[in-house]
């Protein structure tokens, strides 16, 4: 199965070089190139690639900025010449990156690793047919950056979204970074079978609920796996009971 890829790098020669190196990997089809983050974002949204090769230091916005603006992050392999901060971020979170000039062996390893991840996902029963626009599935990942640290987070791993002004706080494992997205915008994109709007300020992952208790005024109190407690408003409690009784 061929994978569609986009190369995003501000240097024409660097893009050429990568294209040449990818010539040895027939399973990768380069469907587009972009010279900056803005152009890259447009092409990703338009062409829905499986994979992007992304430079970090680019004019205007950085590669990280680009990722945080995407609804759904495709598989990303970062390419960078030398960037202390970025390298630190990669090492902490084991994101995949290639150092320029790229070693052919490293490129092959990175592609192999990606194949393994995909296989695991497919065999674990994920229905990965055609990625529809709009609703995000469990296996979709979002890119989250908080100061120097950054993560790709599978939606399935997120326990809770909490609204904080214009931002949303994302709870997963031991982290809760902020992303610049409103809860309403998130709700539209999330699968309502999995993510439930408990009240004005919270969206919870139904699979992460540990305990349900009755609460004042016919509301409910949910205890989530990480220990957070979320109140369900009376109106939403009716909906919640309906969903759960099915």
């Amino acid at each position, binding site marked *: 199965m061929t994978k569609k890829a986009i190369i995003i790098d501000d*240097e024409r*020669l660097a893009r*050429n070089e990568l294209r040449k190196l990818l010539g040895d990997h027939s399973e990768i089809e380069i469907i587009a190139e972009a010279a900056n983050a803005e152009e890259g974002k447009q092409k990703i949204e338009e062409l829905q690639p499986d994979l992007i090769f992304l430079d970090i*230091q680019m*004019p205007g916005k950085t590669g990280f900025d680009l990722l945080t603006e995407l609804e759904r992050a495709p598989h990303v392999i970062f390419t960078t*010449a030398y960037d202390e901060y970025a390298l630190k971020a990669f090492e902490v979170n084991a994101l995949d990156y290639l150092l320029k*000039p*790229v070693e052919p062996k490293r490129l092959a390893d990175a592609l192999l690793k990606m194949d393994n991840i995909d296989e695991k996902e497919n065999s674990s029963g994920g229905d990965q047919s055609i990625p529809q626009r709009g609703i995000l599935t469990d296996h979709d990942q979002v890119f989250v950056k908080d100061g120097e640290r950054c993560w790709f987070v599978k939606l399935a791993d997120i326990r809770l979204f909490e609204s904080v002004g214009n931002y949303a706080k994302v709870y997963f494992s031991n982290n809760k970074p902020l992303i610049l997205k409103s809860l309403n915008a998130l709700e539209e994109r999330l699968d309502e079978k999995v993510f439930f709007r408990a009240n004005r300020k919270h969206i919870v992952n139904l699979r992460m609920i540990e305990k349900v208790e009755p609460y004042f005024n016919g509301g409910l109190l949910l205890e989530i796996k990480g220990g957070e407690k979320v109140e369900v408003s009376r109106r939403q409690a009716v909906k919640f009971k309906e969903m759960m009784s099915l």
Partner: protein
Amino acid sequence: MFLLINTFFAVTFEKFNVALAGRLVVFVGMGLLFSHLMRAVIIRLGILSRSLNEQILGFLAVTIFFALVIGGLDSMITKWLRIDKDREISGSLELLSNTFIAFVYLFLWNMIYFIYHYIEKSRKQQFDTLKLQALVKELELKTIKSHINPHFIFNALNSIRALIDENPARARDAITELSNILRSSMQAENIETVPLLRELGIVRDYLALEHIRFEDRLKVEYDIDEDTLNQPVPYMMLQTLVENAIKHGISKNVNGGIIRIISDFRNDHHELIVRNTGKLNGGVNKEGFGIQSTDNRLSLLFGANAKFEINDTPENMVEARVKIPIHTY
């Protein structure tokens, strides 16, 4: 030294006679013994490294304590030796006078000891401060001179790799240019100034490489007065300014921009100017390491009249300006 002082005081204050000679020997012997003991105590208690108030207190306490001990011992020994039986003084008065004399001697002696150490310490401190300042200065110069951005080196290597197929002749040139820059940056530690001509050579190589990377996003203009080509300039300073101009002016801008390098005489100064498209947007830290150490380096090399400034110009450019006074030997 103690012996000398004691003898001196003995001679000055008391009439020198045979009866006194024995006493003096005892006194000097004890003085030697106790001054060493006292030194041990002072060092043991670490009095010298405390605050001034504590030093004075400690100094007085030690002096009084030892004066009592010496006074007491002195009385006992003289009594035991019966050196001056002819003197008819009561024991307690003898003890008091001996203690007082010992106190005076010890006070003077300790005063000298403490003052000596005090002066020694402050001199050492001054010396250390100077040494530290020199070290800091040297480090600052080293960092600013030998700093070629690794990001640049690896990007250049990556571009050259792509050029090998696309334009082999250009790739060969690029390798020479990169070698020149790396060599210059390695030599930077040992060289203070070079003629502008040589510095410009490095800058041209550097810009040629950046041009491979940025292609038509980077435009370079030179405006060099030929008479300034032999002027001494700080080694790798223009290069650093150009590197910064690229970093802040060109690489952040999607459409790229212009770099203009100007060298000219103005009044009694040689001026080197690097302009780049862009704005400071108030984000420049005037006390920042780069600006401060560039300024420091200039005044170290050319005196207080040499200056470095960075400003916005009316034509929407950022201008870094180096002013070097012209030497008229």
